[in-house]
């Protein structure tokens, strides 16, 4: 076909035709843009509504009900911190920890400079025994805020747990640069030197710490341990007795006191202190076992009794309150609860359980 024939048959001038087509295209584009903008406005509004709805549902009711809404909203607004936070915390409360990690990871990615999600993830990782991951978060937090003594101590503990004591020492030295003189950090540094077999350095650090903080029980106890190791148990006894005066429930100091007393030939006193240590040990063992087997009534009762014997009333209540829900007619549980509440000054509750225990 001759292309010129088509041009001859078309009466509209070419420039007009082009202009017309352009107008058409422009119109379509404009309409599309308007539609798109409208869609986005609608979508934004919709997402905002969905988000508010989800968050309100979360506030007003159980997480279980709000969860699908929160997830939908978070899928629509993946960088929304509030939703990520609600989902992270909600899953933690529901003990769905794998899901919590997913949203915490997103939250940490969205707010890389915020401490809160990192702190929360550190604790979560620690709980689900991903200690290396917890430590990584902890070290980031310490790097950002070396003045945070509590975090330094927390991360040091984690590093100890996995055997990274040299890293713990490095961290402590860095934290001490921002918190010169902090007795807790200085104690931990001395301990780090001690457990790495650098006794003279540990001794030097402990001596200085105790000289400046003679009322700091941890420092006294560590100095006493060093005395014991240097075959000077009599000096250890004095320091440990002082530490226990300052902190009567200092189990480790009591253990070392018992050994030091035995070394200086005060066997009776040593046995008395060791009996105390044993009572504490047994109560902790029963507490652990009672948590492991919550359906075992006998174990709950024995744990509570042992805890009461060492004066750990709050922990005994922690065992008994869930137990009384499981074993509502168990008189022994009511009687023990009555004793606990009485010690806590909750007289009405004590009376109520005493009656039920009769």
């Amino acid at each position: 076909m001759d292309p010129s024939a088509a041009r001859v048959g078309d009466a509209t001038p070419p420039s007009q035709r082009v202009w017309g087509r352009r107008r058409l295209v422009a119109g379509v584009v404009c309409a599309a843009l308007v539609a798109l903008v409208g869609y986005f406005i609608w979508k934004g509004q919709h997402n905002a509504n969905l988000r508010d709805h989800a968050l309100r549902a979360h506030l007003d009711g159980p997480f279980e009900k709000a969860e699908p809404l929160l997830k939908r909203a978070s899928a629509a607004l993946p960088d929304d911190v509030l939703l990520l936070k609600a989902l992270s915390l909600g899953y933690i409360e529901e003990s769905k920890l794998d899901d919590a990690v997913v949203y915490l990871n997103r939250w940490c990615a969205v707010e890389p400079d915020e401490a809160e999600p990192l702190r929360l993830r550190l604790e979560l990782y620690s709980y689900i025994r991903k200690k290396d991951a917890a430590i990584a978060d902890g070290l980031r937090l310490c790097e950002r805020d070396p003045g945070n003594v509590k975090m330094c101590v927390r991360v040091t503990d984690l590093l100890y747990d996995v055997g990274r004591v040299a890293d713990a020492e490095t961290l402590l030295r860095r934290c001490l640069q921002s918190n010169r003189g902090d007795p807790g950090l200085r104690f931990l540094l001395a301990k780090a030197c001690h457990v790495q077999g650098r006794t003279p350095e540990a001794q030097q650090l402990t001596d200085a710490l105790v000289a400046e903080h003679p009322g700091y029980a941890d420092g006294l106890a560590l100095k006493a341990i060093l005395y014991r190791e240097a075959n000077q148990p009599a000096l250890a006894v004095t320091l440990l007795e002082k530490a226990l005066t300052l902190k009567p429930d200092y189990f480790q100091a009591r253990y070392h006191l018992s050994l030091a007393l035995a070394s200086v030939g005060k066997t009776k006193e040593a046995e008395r202190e060791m009996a105390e240590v044993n009572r504490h040990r047994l109560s902790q063992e029963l507490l652990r076992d009672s948590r492991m087997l919550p359906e075992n009534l006998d174990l709950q009762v024995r744990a509570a009794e042992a805890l009461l014997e060492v004066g750990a009333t709050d922990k005994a209540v922690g065992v008994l309150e869930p137990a009384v829900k499981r074993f509502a007619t168990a008189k022994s549980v009511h009687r023990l609860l009555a004793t606990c509440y009485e010690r806590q000054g909750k007289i009405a509750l004590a009376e109520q359980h005493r009656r039920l225990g009769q």
Partner: protein
Amino acid sequence: MILSRVVSCCGLSALLALCGLSCSSNNATKPDVKVAAPTGPTAGAPWFEDVAPASGIDFRHFDPATPVHYIQETLGSGLAWVDYNNDGWPDLFCVQDGPVRAGLQGEGPKAVPTNKLYRNNGDGTFTDVTVQTGLDRGGFGQGCAVGDFDNDGFDDLVVTYLGGIVLYHNRPDGISRRRFVDVTEKSGLRDPHWATSAAWGDIDGDGFLDLYVCNYVEVDMEKYTICEQKGLRYSCSPTIFPHVTHKLFRNQGNGTFADVSQSSGIAAAPPAPGLGVLICDLDGDGRADIYAANDMRPAYLFHNQGGGKFVEKGLLAGCGLGPYGGEIAGMGVEAGDVDGSGWPSLFVTNFQDAPNVLFRNKGKMFFLEQSYPSGLGFPSLRRLGFGTVFVDADLDGHLDVAVANGHVNRPAAELFGASFAQQAQFFTGDGKAKFRDATAQAGAYFQELRVGRGLAWADFDNDGLVDLAFSHNGGPIALLRNQTATKNHWLRLELIGDGKKSNRNAIGTRIEIEAGGRKQVCFLNGGGSYLSANERRLLVGLGDSAKVERVTLQWPSGLRQSFQDLAADAWWRFVEGSEQPERVKAGPAER
């Protein structure tokens, strides 16, 4: 605004809950990953190769795993080096367990796999002689102890079971070979409990070996408690089961034993789940003391008072609890002079997230816990330790430590962030109670993930280097031949008591070796490790000393003998009372 409300609504409680949870949780770690094995030995460092597949040792431990996760499934079984035919080539005895429910009486059906004895052919291979030696017995076997209880010159065998113990007397079979005969009933040995590790030692100085047996827990199979977390079952802690006292049997010298658990004072100690035991004179008073590791309960230190009486002193002696007074889930035990003090220090393996514990012996029955400063504590936090031995693998004159590791719970990764199968570990010592983790350089086996349990040493090829055998729960034996490249010298000591005042095995002898201006002190202990027994001969590293100036033996009878100028790199046999030791050359193995 909404943000703050969300936080106030659930943030605090969640954080509090988390804090509470994290505070109550155990200190667990993430599972280990397999590390690429180094391809060859590092100069001067211990190096072992697993030669079990080529040796003919085909023992595979029965895996008693069930969906219930009974506690009985967790302990595994041990092994023992016993030169049963006295040909100078240590033979290997492997204990077998079986289905939990079938093994309660210590006698399983014949269809289940049995214990195995492998005779050492002297050429790096072994032959299964289980049937011909009369050891083809099933049941839920746990541990074993080797000792010549009748002083006839041939080592006998005790095997512990879930529900009992069996004493095998090593006798001639009438054709010129040896055979083990079950003499349990006649001997009067009776322990109807869950017996684990056992140790021979002469507790009353009468020249006959007495027997200590650890008992673990009592399990009522009809009312078995199930432990579950996150929908996964796991083995409950031994603390929730009833415990019974351990057993001490006095050898009456006529082939029978008397249960002296009560009269000796052993039973006066609070019952505890025992797993490891050794018999050694810990305070140098010439009497055999007993140290027993208990699972989640303080270890026992039974101080021998003489006259067959013991007083338990573990806690106040400072070797009952771990660092800072923490409980030890004691599994394997070992004793040796790791710090050059001349006293036997104690070493106890421990649970995951808790350190293996070193107690340095300060004399007069006082011990100083030094797990972390020694370098043995921190590397063990991510392991669950069982069998352990002190050996001088590189012959430098300083004791090293090997540890078998493996978790007790199959869902350990899901529940505890730990690996079920784990790497064994090897630490080199400097003779001053400091150790270096040499696991990564010790050979391919130490990079493999296994569920380690028993561990015992022997120089099975008589080349002057200590070899190791590991047992695994539900797995094959690993026979690690020591291939350390070293020019260091060694001395092998075979001690034979007079069989009258000292037991023929000479268990309880203290040995001083002076070479190159250095003095080493060794001890011939009863028991040790976990469910396992080492070879009887001692192998001492001499460093670069090609000659031994003096060997001094303090026999169990009290006799003290010194011998001068002995050649190194040789096997010397010392017979109590003889004026000169005999130099022995390993002859051909019995075929």
